């Protein structure tokens, strides 16, 4: 079903396709093979990234594919003034699958319109990060056994955070009990995200405080609230405590909750959580490999 497809937004996939992806990912855990031998995956990272790029690289190599690419715009002909379109045309002639990250929203869609080969969006500006959402949903399913009927709190900068938006989009493909959107008023989820929640009849609540809703939550999805997004340092200092996941908060919740984070984190998760049953973020990071392996193999149309 995913063979030859571009992956621009998690909204491009159906629930059935996501479930197929997850069952393939399950089989990819610990898998090493040569099913993509002879394939070349281009990793075009116009914006710096460590995790996403390295995990795509590992995923490709564990399937026997080779990778080419670059990890910042400065290191390429872009610095000499080449357009994205021209770079994509070049990569399209060198590689079989293109993974692209770019600071402008819509860059991956433009690339997909140009390239003959499949394009995977590795993050476009503040808009989409579909493979992160796949990993996040897979982690929930792996730990909780299901994505349906759980209550979620998505916490942090919901306006600029592409991981948070993509996770919310991904949840609308399932039947969550309720989604709490926890953010400062100035960093609330964008209107287009809210529109999808409404259109799909997902129950959601916008709130400013994690502690007020934690007693009703099964999954806490933490993201960074960056200082630079606030008008003043004082404003930031006033709210930052509301967007921090502490051990006390977890213990007092009375819930069997788990905490996710797309990483890297700064200080929004108490490090004392790391060794507890609440911490799911390291497992989540590790799940990046099998999920991306599954996606590459399904797009290539080669099953393990």
């Amino acid at each position, binding site marked *: 079903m995913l063979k030859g497809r571009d992956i621009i937004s998690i909204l491009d996939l159906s629930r059935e396709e996501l479930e197929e992806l997850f069952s393939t990912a399950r089989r990819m855990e610990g898998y090493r093979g040569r099913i993509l031998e002879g394939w070349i995956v281009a990793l075009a990272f116009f914006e710096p990234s460590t995790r996403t790029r390295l995990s795509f690289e590992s995923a490709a190599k564990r399937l026997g594919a080779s990778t080419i690419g670059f990890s910042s715009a400065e290191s390429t002909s872009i610095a000499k003034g080449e357009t994205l379109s021209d770079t994509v045309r070049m990569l399209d002639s060198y590689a079989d699958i293109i993974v692209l990250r770019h600071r*402008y*929203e*819509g860059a991956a869609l*433009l690339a997909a319109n140009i390239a003959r080969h499949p394009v995977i969006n590795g993050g476009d500006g*503040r*808009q989409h990060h579909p493979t992160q959402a796949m990993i996040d949903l897979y982690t929930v399913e792996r730990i909780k056994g299901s994505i349906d009927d759980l209550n979620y709190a998505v916490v942090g900068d919901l306006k600029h955070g592409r991981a948070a938006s993509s996770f919310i989009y991904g949840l609308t493909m399932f039947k969550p009990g309720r989604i709490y959107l926890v953010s400062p008023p100035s960093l609330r989820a964008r*209107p287009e995200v809210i529109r999808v929640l409404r259109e799909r009849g997902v129950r959601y609540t916008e709130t400013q405080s994690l502690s007020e809703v934690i007693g009703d939550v099964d999954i806490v999805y933490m993201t960074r609230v960056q200082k630079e997004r606030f008008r003043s340092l004082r404003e930031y200092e006033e709210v930052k405590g509301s967007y921090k996941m502490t051990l006390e908060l977890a213990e007092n919740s009375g819930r069997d909750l788990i905490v996710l984070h797309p990483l890297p984190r700064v200080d929004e998760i108490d490090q004392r959580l790391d060794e507890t049953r609440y911490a799911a973020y390291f497992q989540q990071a590790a799940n990046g490999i099998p999920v991306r392996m599954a996606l590459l193999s399904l797009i290539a149309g080669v099953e393990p």
Partner: protein
Amino acid sequence: MTSIRVEEGFLLGPLEYRDALLLAFAANGAQVVFMDDGYYLVLQDKPGGSLLASAAVLNPGIILRRAGSNAYERVAENLPGEIEGLAPCPNPTCITNQPREKAARRFRVLVMEGRVAMQCVYCGTLIMRDDLRRMLAASLRVEADHS
């Protein structure tokens, strides 16, 4: 097909139907001149000819009442699903606003809570209400009628 009942009371506020008309006529390449009261439009459908009209929007179709007549007629079965090349996306970090990239401007036309809205196909930005009107007015051949 949905049946349509037109009543004066069904008229949405001036902003909503003006937006819808602008979109519908922009999609057909028409020239639109509107007056400041918001309820009456002069639609110049071909050079030299003009037509005074008031309009009602029944989502998702468009109904129009010509001046001097009590009859309504349906001028668009539906809003256009997508419009291309209309105006710059209001999001400065949208790929379509990078002049060297040559990404065609494309917008989905939506109806949200009885109002017309557009969504940039590339960056997903929703353009609603005043932002939409500002964007349309700046890009269509729209003039206020001072006669």
